[in-house]
């Protein structure tokens, strides 16, 4: 086989992939917005509402059928019948309940915690345009999805570039206890534009309740959790769910650790054998969450001035470990966590930023090392409203090998990256080098175009410095100059 044959064969094989799925641009913009919003979540007593979804414009109206049940009537080329048709779910025949939740206000505790300037952008569909897509019993209570005309007024809606907010329908998930009357139901998601091409989902990781609403005839598959093998590869198995009228109501394993996502659980919707959607479900935001049992974490070195979300709130490393448990679907007894570093990041104008570096050793021996940053934000309109921004510095899964406590870690952390807020300063890049303290005083050095760079790790084996532009690998040496290791700088 020569190079010309390979060229020709590659061209032929590349054609096998076909054309991109329609709506790529919209998905890119939506993903960008989600990434930004994920890092700028309003936080008050654990509130974490993420806006998700992709949509295409569709015009819908609500009609009353002869039996009094609402019917969503598409006026012009509906993208799918996921959101049309009569109410589905085990409570769909309870017309009083359905009508009761349809008329519930979309305001409440959850929305009150959103800064006023952002609150004004959220949709609040006129009552006459609303209908109930799903109403049913789930594990631990009752859920309902109410949708209506999207009258949200986000600043960029006119530009029409963000299909999340330019969608013509919006919706809210409501939840209540078992046997709840409509008045006992309350919003557990923020009002948001609905992705009419894709399914609606809601997942409460605490109770394990999961609902996936797709179109009648669609099949729904679920994957409970990824499996992490010793070589750090990940496998995922999907199992077909019981589906009725395009709706799957499932009881997954509960976990006391609430997370805004991503979750270990993933769903996949097939239509005519083709995958229509594959993603993680939308998070249930409990307005009054029950605090999770605090994880007893092992610290490699004492935390140094870590910025808690709130004076009595969980620390960054606790939030990270809870997120890892939710993301991998494992219990704290299955994973060994080690906090390698927890402290403030000096320098720059973001003086309130902190960083935590946490490792999780899975039963297979594979090790996840994750570093996150966090900073406080003050809302100009409502200074009393607690907010924070957070993001990832690095996140690497490595095969079973040297115990992570013995490893030398080098991490680049760009505090403020992906936070979209005009009045914030630019991201600040910091280098964090961590070494086991039993190594004694060591240096980490590299040669850059601008000249040599080195930092010294003394005491607890920590060095924090402004990130040296262009650095990729650090040579770690002891006091005598003996090279101990060459460490690649990990980053996001």
């Amino acid at each position, binding site marked *: *086989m020569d*190079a010309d044959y*390979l*060229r020709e*064969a*590659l*061209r*032929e*094989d*590349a*054609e*096998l*992939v*076909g*054309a*991109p*799925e329609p709506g*790529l*641009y919209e*998905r*890119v*913009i939506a*993903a*960008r917005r989600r*990434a930004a919003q994920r890092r700028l979540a309003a936080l008050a007593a654990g509130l974490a509402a993420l806006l998700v979804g992709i949509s295409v414009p569709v015009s819908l109206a609500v009609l009353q059928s002869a039996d009094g049940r609402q019917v969503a009537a598409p006026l012009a080329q509906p993208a799918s019948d996921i959101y049309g048709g009569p109410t589905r779910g085990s409570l769909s025949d309870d017309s009083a309940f359905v009508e009761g939740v349809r008329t519930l206000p979309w305001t409440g505790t959850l929305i009150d915690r959103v800064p006023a300037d952002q609150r004004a952008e959220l949709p609040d569909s006129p009552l006459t345009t609303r209908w109930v897509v799903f109403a049913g019993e789930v594990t631990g209570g009752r859920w309902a999805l109410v949708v209506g005309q999207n009258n949200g007024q986000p600043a960029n809606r006119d*530009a029409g*570039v963000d299909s999340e907010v330019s969608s013509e329908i919006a919706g809210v998930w409501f939840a209540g206890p078992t046997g709840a009357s409509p008045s006992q139901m309350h919003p557990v998601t923020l009002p948001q534009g609905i992705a009419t091409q894709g399914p609606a989902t809601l997942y409460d990781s605490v109770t394990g309740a999961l609902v996936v609403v797709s179109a009648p005839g669609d099949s729904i598959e679920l*994957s409970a959790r*990824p*499996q*992490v*093998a*010793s*070589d*750090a*590869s*990940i*496998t*995922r*198995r*999907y199992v077909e769910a019981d589906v009725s009228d395009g709706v799957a109501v499932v009881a997954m394993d509960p976990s006391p650790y609430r997370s805004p996502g991503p979750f270990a659980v993933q769903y996949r919707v097939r239509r005519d054998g083709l*995958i229509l959607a*594959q993603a993680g479900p939308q998070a249930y935001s409990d307005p009054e969450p029950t605090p999770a049992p605090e994880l007893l974490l092992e610290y490699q070195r004492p935390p140094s001035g870590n910025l808690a979300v709130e004076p009595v709130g969980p620390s960054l490393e606790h939030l990270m470990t809870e997120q890892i448990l939710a993301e991998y679907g494992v219990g704290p007894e299955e994973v060994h966590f080690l906090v390698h570093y927890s402290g403030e990041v000096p320098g720059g104008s973001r003086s309130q930023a902190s960083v935590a570096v946490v490792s999780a050793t899975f039963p297979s021996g594979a090790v*996840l090392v994750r570093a996150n940053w966090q900073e406080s934000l003050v809302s100009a309109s409502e200074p009393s409203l607690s907010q924070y921004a957070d993001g990832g510095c690095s*996140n*690497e*899964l*490595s095969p079973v090998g040297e115990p992570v406590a013995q490893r030398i870690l080098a991490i680049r952390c760009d505090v403020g990256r*992906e936070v979209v807020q005009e009045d914030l300063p630019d991201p600040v890049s910091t280098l964090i080098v961590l070494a086991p303290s039993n190594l004694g005083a060591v240096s980490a050095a590299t040669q850059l175009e601008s000249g040599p760079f080195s930092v010294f790790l003394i005491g607890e084996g920590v060095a924090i410095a402004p990130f040296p532009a262009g650095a990729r690998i650090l040579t770690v040496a002891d006091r005598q100059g003996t090279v101990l290791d060459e460490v690649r700088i*990990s980053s*996001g």
Partner: protein
Amino acid sequence: MSRSDDEDFRSFVVASSPALLRMAFLLTGDRGHAEDLLQTALMKSSRRWTDIKDRQAAYAYVRRVMINTQTSWLRRRHVVENVVDAVPEIAGPDEHHASEGKTLPALAQLPPGMRAVLVLRFYEDLSEAETARLLGCSIGTVKSQASRGLARLRLYFADQRACVSGHGEGL
């Protein structure tokens, strides 16, 4: 982004995504992963769109982001999830992993870096210097990786022929 940048970016996505997806497919061997890779690369590029002064170079820019993203994903590993019918003891093949095509099964046997070199050199027709710059390695590394990659592909195809021939004799 300004409205004109938005329109510019939208036009770019429409015009260039088929070619970028084909390259992503060769890099990943899986349509789903290729779509994810392309979408992520476009998302990252969109944040810098207003800074890309030379729009002629936009394709090269997104291609670079795609390569970096793929490298990052492979490094992190956790992002690359294989979908299997039953969870094996160790990693199993993705059920949507490309098993067809002339080169895809062979490319799947190669280390990611070697695979990227072959794709950039022989599909994107980049020079050794351009490939080295894109992958952040030396020209010598590109030469050796390309040479070894071709050798391993030859070996793979030779084994396949032997296997097919062996089956044929038994029939």
